[in-house]
């Protein structure tokens, strides 16, 4: 999106209105790629103001619960200066990045990369409406003011509504540098705002991907080999066809699909297939073997991603040297809505209804796999019942198109919970080997962090070692603390387990190591953990800001209820800063109870404070679930866990109180979906140390690790 903000605004926005449609502002980002000339003028638009004053806004990012479909209109409505909410919103088919830039809901980007383009669109429309009024009245535009859907000529008291001005505005040139509003004049941004689509959610009328219904649609379930890299070698087609409601059995690259009149018939039909499998080369893979692979790989030379000073020499001369090893397992996203996708593959074109976080990735994968021209693939972005990174990967979309093609009919492919658990793209397993040195005064003089991990980039995107190392050491190589000798490196340890992007990606694990190890060093130095961090953050005001705010709001160091103990952690990721204080008690049996979490974030200007709190609460709960419960283990080449009985989630009776505070700021907004996740696991681990004197160094945190038996 940076490339968009660099082009002049005149190039960026153009009029795409035709007579009678009012003012329509869309993109003009030359050159258009081949094959895209036929894009409908209204599908590459930000906004339309109709002659009736009705405003339509195209939301270009998927919504899987994070609130983009409210926050993005808030930004535009504020800059355009209309009452809230005055939009008729429209869903958008996936189109080329040349039109909207990235449409991916991932990397905590929806607001931070849309802020300038949306304000540009709003300010441009407002300036053109103002100019239209000035021309009608024959006055200077500077004497007219646009406010809340009306342009007023202040000295004469005349006024015209945006609707009355839309047709005229559409005939005027697009201004090059329309002024933005001052943040102090925001009337929507910064106000806690109810989500526009929540009324439909509480009535059960919102259509999720799972609820899509297309005329003539069959239901399908796919039998896949449970072992990664294996395949289906035999099945009883007749038995499946004998199930009431089963209409057919087709082979697809991922397995064998049963087509049926209903989901239940598809599930039963698949059971009746009684598949035999060729388990392939990974049939003996297990968690124990993966640990052995890590033991081996960690001995290899690491690929350095940070090299300040000479850490080894500094350690040799240090007064105290500490060592620690941290372990993080594979984890599943486990969104409440199981994976699903509806597709209708035709000879010359294809239509898809997908609850995806990455519509362009899915769109491109389908076009490429099946040889469709890009403009012949229509992808309807459906609401998702949670994503957390799982729905970035287009596997489920491509598979559904295969099934539809083989069935020669529109098909909804439904994954069961077990399918979703067994065929994920998991948060990678990792091991973190840390060594730190303090001088005689307790000052940190050396730091080493070796990340041994399964690489997402290398296995999913074809990254080279340098790229894989940069990705896997994110959160590790950008250690903010002032330490003159710092070495961070990476040893790659890949297996056949598919890995992908879990909310906050490698920042779920690198800060668990960094921020608990910093606490160990603070203890060794005999310094309070907040003070120890603060004195190494002189050049990092925004780190200091959130650390100080969290400590203040949590009354750090003040008396707590009996048996309660606090731990703190701090982390920067996805453009934003977050610090958290966890208040914890530990039972004699080693059981951990997290009572309260105080979270402080700095993500620049806050668009929707209520949604910021919700996103922080959500990130903390996922992080806490990962810290206390989540573990995918591998046995006989397959995932052991299948449903919520053996892959438990945090429940309401385990839920801490969460307070979210934010730093007041006039800086452009940055991400919030992921940044509050990373600090929670180390904050809890540090609180457990405060309570028990025991350092827990593996996730999930286990009672036996605390009890020591």
């Amino acid at each position, binding site marked *: 999106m940076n490339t968009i903000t660099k082009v002049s605004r005149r190039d960026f926005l153009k009029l795409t209105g035709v007579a009678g449609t009012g003012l329509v502002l869309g993109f003009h980002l030359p050159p258009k790629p081949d094959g895209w000339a036929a894009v409908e003028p209204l599908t590459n638009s930000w906004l339309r103001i109709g002659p009736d004053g009705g405003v339509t806004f195209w939301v270009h990012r998927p919504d899987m619960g994070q609130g983009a479909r409210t926050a993005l209109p808030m930004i535009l409505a504020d800059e355009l200066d209309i009452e809230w909410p005055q939009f008729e919103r429209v869903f958008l088919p996936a189109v080329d990045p040349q039109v909207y830039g990235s449409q991916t809901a991932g990397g905590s980007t929806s607001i931070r990369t849309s802020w300038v383009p949306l304000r540009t669109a709003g300010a441009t429309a407002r300036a053109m409406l103002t100019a239209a009024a000035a021309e009608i009245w024959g006055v200077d535009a500077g004497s007219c003011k646009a406010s809340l859907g009306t342009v007023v000529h202040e000295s004469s008291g005349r006024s015209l509504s945006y609707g009355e001005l839309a047709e005229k505005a559409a005939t005027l040139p697009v201004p090059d540098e329309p002024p933005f509003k001052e943040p102090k004049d925001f009337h929507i941004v910064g106000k806690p705002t109810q989500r526009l689509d929540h009324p439909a959610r509480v*009535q059960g009328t919102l259509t999720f991907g799972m609820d899509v219904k297309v005329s003539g649609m069959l239901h399908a379930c796919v039998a896949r080999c449970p072992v990664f890299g294996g395949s289906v070698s035999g099945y009883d087609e007749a038995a499946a066809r004998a199930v009431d*409601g089963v209409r057919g059995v087709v082979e697809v690259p991922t397995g064998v699909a049963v087509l049926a009149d209903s989901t239940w018939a598809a599930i039963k039909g698949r059971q009746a297939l009684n598949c035999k499998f060729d388990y392939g080369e990974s049939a003996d893979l297990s968690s124990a073997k993966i640990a052995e692979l890590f033991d081996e790989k960690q001995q290899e030379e690491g690929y350095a991603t940070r090299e300040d000073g000479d850490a080894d020499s500094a350690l040799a001369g240090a007064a105290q040297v500490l060592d620690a090893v941290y372990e993080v397992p594979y984890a599943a996203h486990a969104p409440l*809505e199981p994976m699903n996708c509806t597709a209708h593959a035709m000879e010359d074109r294809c239509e898809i209804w997908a609850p995806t976080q990455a519509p362009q990735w899915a769109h491109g994968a389908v076009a490429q796999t099946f040889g469709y021209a890009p403009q012949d693939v229509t992808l309807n972005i459906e609401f998702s019942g949670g994503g957390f990174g799982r729905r970035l990967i287009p596997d489920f979309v491509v598979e559904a198109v295969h099934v539809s093609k083989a069935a020669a009919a529109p098909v909804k492919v439904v994954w069961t*919970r077990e399918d979703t658990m067994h065929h994920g793209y998991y948060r990678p397993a990792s091991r973190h080997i840390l060594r730190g040195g303090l001088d005689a005064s307790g000052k940190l003089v050396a730091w080493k962090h070796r990340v041994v991990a399964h690489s997402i980039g290398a296995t999913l995107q074809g990254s080279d070692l340098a790229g894989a190392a940069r990705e896997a050491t994110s959160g590790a190589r950008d250690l903010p603390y002032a330490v003159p000798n710092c070495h961070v490196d990476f040893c790659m340890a890949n297996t056949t387990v598919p890995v992908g992007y879990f909310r906050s990606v490698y920042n779920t694990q690198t800060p668990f190591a960094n921020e608990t190890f910093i606490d160990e060093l603070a203890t060794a130095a005999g310094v309070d953990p907040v003070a120890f961090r603060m004195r190494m953050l002189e050049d990092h005001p925004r780190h200091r800001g959130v650390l100080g705010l969290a400590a203040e709001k949590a009354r750090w160091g003040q008396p707590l209820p009996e048996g309660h103990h606090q731990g703190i952690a701090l982390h920067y990721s996805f453009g934003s800063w977050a610090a958290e204080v966890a208040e914890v008690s530990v039972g004699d049996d080693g059981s951990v109870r997290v009572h309260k979490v105080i979270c402080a974030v700095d993500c620049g200007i806050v668009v929707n404070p209520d949604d910021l709190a919700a996103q922080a609460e959500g990130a903390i709960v996922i992080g806490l679930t990962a810290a206390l419960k989540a573990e995918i283990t591998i046995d006989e080449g397959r995932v052991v866990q299948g449903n919520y009985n053996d892959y438990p989630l945090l429940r*309401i009776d385990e839920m801490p109180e969460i307070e979210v505070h934010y730093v007041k700021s006039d800086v452009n907004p940055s991400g919030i979906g992921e940044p509050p996740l990373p600090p929670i696991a180390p904050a809890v681990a540090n609180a457990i140390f405060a309570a028990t004197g025991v350092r827990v160094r593996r996730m999930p945190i286990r009672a036996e690790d605390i009890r020591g038996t």
Partner: protein
Amino acid sequence: MARFTLKVNGETHRNVNVDPETPLLWVLRDTLGLTGTKFGCGAGLCGACTVHMDGEPAPSCAIPVSSAEDSEITTIEGLSQNGGHPVQQAWLAEQALQCGYCQPGQIMGAAALLAKNPDPSDADIDEAMSPYLCRCGTYQRIRRAIHRAAREV
């Protein structure tokens, strides 16, 4: 296949022709088109598919249609006209949802709790609501929404 008569949201559906083992969930969703009731786990482990059977919360994914014939079934679509139930209103007031996929089940669970216990304590809420999983982290808002609905009933 066999024919069943189901009473759903005050309406009687005769001659529902399905496999007797079909979970009520799939009859509601695929046969009757009531997709507000959600498929989450298929094993009675997450609560997303909760409906009321004679006023009691029940996991529709774990109840065969053959066992549902004699009950008055209420789904999220039948809980109120236009979302006017105090629990739904409280959910909006507290913004007790993010993706919302689990929330029809949460709301049906909370409505059943309040019907029996108009002023539940936090411990009552923990006990009644702990079967309902949410991955987005809305639990404390759900707690506040139940207390709010209790005040307004």
